[in-house]
């Protein structure tokens, strides 16, 4: 069914690819647009901006989200900022530099063409957001302010206090509301997609469940766009919202969409450390804190139990500044996370369980005054105090890495279309732009780039040949999909065992964190691959899902998602095992430099690994691997160095 994986990156010089692609793309004329119905699943930065923009262009859009309002999508929780190559600071930034930093930050495992385009449209995003009324931070002269983020030596990050994601999402939500009022977008909140419907090889609809009433619906459309975010909650504990899940993308995978690089998960270095079994999520402390905070642990194990203020300067190890003098505390996320794990593994971690490092603002407070620090990060300090009961103006914060973002996702070509014609994937749900590691403040950029400025140009090329092909939702394929969805729900309700969902999900999360987390090795991954099927079997034998399917049933919602995580986890481990190199966030212990840095194998692994589902009947048939070789025409592959 799948031939060679063609990323369809246009030819020509890097900086002309997108322009010439747009110049030659097919169009849909204004009076024909209303004949097309576009299904968008997800209403975060990617889905919301796509829905608003396509609605404004005149398409008829149906947008679905599991939350009770599109304004609550998890993009809202992004704190620090959004990158754009505006060069407002006159500090040497350019489209090329943002492109290069992103490619290098991703450890040379992303596509040049896609990343260049992302950098190219980044400036338009800021223009668009300002026009919508996003209240970005400004300087006294009224111009936009910037700060720095990891993996860059320029200040190109735009921000709205520590609530940048919230403000960008509310901008996009307000544009969406305008289209809802205008009647071009129909919004379906509290509605979850449970299957994609494929007709004659094209994605032409979805099956949904109304979470409030339990009603199952078949929805036909001319194209299906998935903007359903990442799968970090496979680990149970992550910085994701409770509802974030892999269900939409995983079920599309089971219908033939390729899943690319599922083992690339980003572990964010600055989160509040884990404190007990009851804990339901981990809270991020924005990376922007590393602009002014210095990361350290005691030089000696014996000092770890002392109060940090009692440890003199000479006994502290500012290990990021020591190991990576050029980037210091602003080293990229994967590198900073691993460095934290390393010092804690050496027994020099601080706080309960010894899994924590200090993020210290004392120097910055001495230099700039407490008020300046409060202006920059006040709300983050408040959040920290709420959760830990500690005042970070007086004692250093304790932080530890946590699962945060997933670079992997459904495979898409340059047009953001998956291998299934008509199925587009945008935002965190696709795999395209961040390679093996995402730089800070780039997720918001990518979500909005896809929704505002890429998809509206690439979707018409597909639609132009699809006039009049939208099927009726009564077609047999829809009926089959609906029956499958109903059967799966019934199966979950029928187990009626004695274990809670959370207990099994926690067990899966711990296993993934230990074996497929910040560091992986062959033995551990094979062990995980042995245990996951047992866990899945235990789930289907012993889980208890109360209530019925015809009602508002939160246990049932979550049960379906956990069931998918239990299958998906295996794919993550298979991918991690197959990628027998280290790159970015994927650190295979077998492959490291003498200094302990990730050691890539470009000869064998400069490629995207895209997996094709082969069946699951209790046990998973090994998926089929498709490789998309990565061609670097512009950048020179180097060992990533932040020293």
């Amino acid at each position: 069914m799948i031939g060679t994986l063609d990323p369809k990156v246009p030819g020509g010089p890097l900086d002309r690819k997108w322009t010439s692609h747009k110049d030659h793309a097919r169009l849909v004329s204004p009076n024909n647009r209303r004949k097309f119905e576009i299904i968008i699943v997800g209403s975060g930065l990617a889905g919301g901006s796509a829905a608003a923009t396509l609605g404004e262009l005149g398409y008829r859009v149906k947008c679905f989200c599991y939350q009770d309002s599109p304004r609550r999508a998890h993009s809202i929780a992004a704190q620090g900022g959004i990158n754009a190559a505006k060069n407002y600071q006159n500090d040497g930034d350019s489209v090329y530099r943002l492109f290069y930093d992103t490619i290098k930050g991703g450890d040379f495992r992303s596509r040049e063409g896609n990343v260049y385009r992302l950098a190219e449209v980044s400036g338009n995003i800021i223009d668009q957001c300002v026009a919508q009324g996003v209240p970005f931070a400004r300087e006294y002269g009224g111009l936009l302010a910037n700060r720095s983020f990891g993996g860059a030596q320029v200040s190109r990050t735009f921000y709205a206090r520590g609530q940048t994601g919230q403000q960008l999402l509310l901008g996009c939500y307000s544009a969406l509301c305008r289209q809802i009022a205008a009647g071009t977008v129909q919004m379906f909140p509290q509605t979850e997609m449970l299957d994609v419907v494929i007709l004659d090889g094209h994605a032409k609809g979805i099956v949904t469940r109304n979470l409030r009433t339990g009603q199952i619906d078949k929805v036909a459309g001319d194209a299906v766009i998935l903007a359903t975010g990442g799968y970090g909650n496979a680990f149970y504990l992550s910085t994701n919202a409770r509802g974030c899940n892999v269900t939409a993308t995983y079920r599309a995978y089971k219908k033939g969409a390729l899943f690319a690089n599922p083992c690339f998960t980003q572990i964010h270095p600055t989160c509040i450390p884990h404190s007990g079994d009851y804990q339901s999520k981990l809270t991020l402390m924005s990376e922007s804190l590393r602009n002014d905070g210095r990361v350290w642990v005691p030089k000696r194990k014996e000092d770890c139990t002392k109060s940090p203020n009692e440890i003199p300067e000479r006994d502290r190890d500012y290990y990021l500044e020591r190991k990576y003098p050029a980037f210091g505390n602003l080293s990229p996320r994967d590198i900073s996370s691993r460095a934290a794990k390393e010092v804690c593994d050496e027994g020099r971690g601080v706080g309960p369980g010894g899994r924590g490092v200090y993020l210290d603002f004392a120097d910055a407070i001495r230099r700039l005054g407490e008020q300046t620090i409060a202006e920059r990060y006040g709300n983050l300090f408040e959040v920290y105090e709420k959760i830990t009961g500690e005042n970070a103006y007086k004692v250093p914060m304790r932080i530890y890495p946590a699962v945060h973002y997933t670079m992997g996702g459904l495979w898409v070509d340059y047009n953001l279309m998956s291998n299934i014609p008509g199925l587009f994937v945008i935002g965190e749900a696709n795999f395209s732009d961040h390679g093996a590691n995402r730089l800070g403040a780039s997720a918001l950029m990518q979500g909005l780039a896809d929704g505002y400025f890429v998809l509206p140009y690439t979707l018409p090329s597909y639609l132009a040949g699809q006039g009049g092909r939208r099927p009726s939702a009564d077609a047999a394929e829809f009926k089959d999909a609906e029956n499958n969805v109903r059967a799966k729900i019934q199966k979950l309700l029928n187990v009626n065992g004695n274990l809670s969902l959370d207990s099994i999900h926690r067990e899966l999360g711990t296993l993934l964190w230990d074996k497929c987390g910040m560091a992986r090795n062959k033995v551990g991954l094979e062990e995980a691959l042995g245990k996951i099927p047992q866990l899945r079997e235990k789930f289907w034998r012993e889980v208890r899902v109360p209530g019925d399917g015809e009602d508002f049933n939160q246990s049932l919602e979550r049960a379906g998602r956990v069931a998918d995580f239990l299958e998906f986890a295996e794919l993550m481990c298979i991918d991690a095992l197959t990628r027998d190199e280290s790159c970015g966030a994927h650190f295979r212990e077998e492959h490291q430099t003498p200094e302990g840095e990730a050691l890539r194998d470009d000869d064998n692994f400069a490629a995207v690994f895209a997996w094709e589902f082969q069946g699951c009947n209790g046990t998973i048939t090994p998926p089929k691997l498709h490789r998309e070789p990565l061609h670097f025409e512009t950048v020179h592959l180097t060992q990533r160095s932040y020293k």
Partner: protein
Amino acid sequence: MNFNLKVWRQKDRQSLGTLVDYAALDIPPQASLLEMLDIVNERLLLKGEEPVAFDSDCREGICGTCSLTVNGEAHGPDHPGAACELYMRKFREGQTIVIEPFRVKSFPIIKDLVVDRSALDRIVQAGGFISARAGSAPEANSVPVPKTDADVSMEAAACIGCGACAAACPNASAMLFTAAKVSHLALLPQGKPERAKRVIGMVQAMDAEGFGNCTNTYECEAVCPAEISASFIAKLNREYSRASLKRSAGE
């Protein structure tokens, strides 16, 4: 820690609800209120009882999904903060904790502690936006915005849309919510062209949804997790008067 819970249980919108007693034993003091409910729910489940339905998502106080009234206060006693940011160490050992949904006529109960707040979305749809088509925006730095205006605008824009303001208000007024959006946009030069139309549309929608009006009790400000100042309500009133006058003057 140990607590006596009284939790509102209601099967659906039509049914009558009631407070049900539950013992919450051996709760870690570092757990959040929602994590305490997770623990109680897990135990209920294993006893064969139906868990308590309650809404939450980000669990870090920004998505605005949680909608609990705790001991009579929207989001509970630890202001400012959403219910997900309320930690059990803030309660006394053995304390009775009453947990109810947000009580607002315009927020019908879906089940137990879950309410329908789509009325707030409809207020925004009635004008809470700036019409800016993707692709037509001018260069971002072409319109300078004084830092003080941008900062005040941001203070209003910080609203998380939870609806606690309406739940706390004796008149079930959503004026703080509406005022925050109107002020956020009216304070920016980009928001000026639609300023009059916006405020009139949003206030009309707010009335149509059945929310009450402000009588200056400031309960909204006291419970707001985003610390939106009630002075924005005064701003909303000024914006509304200005727009109405202009309209009656035929502008």
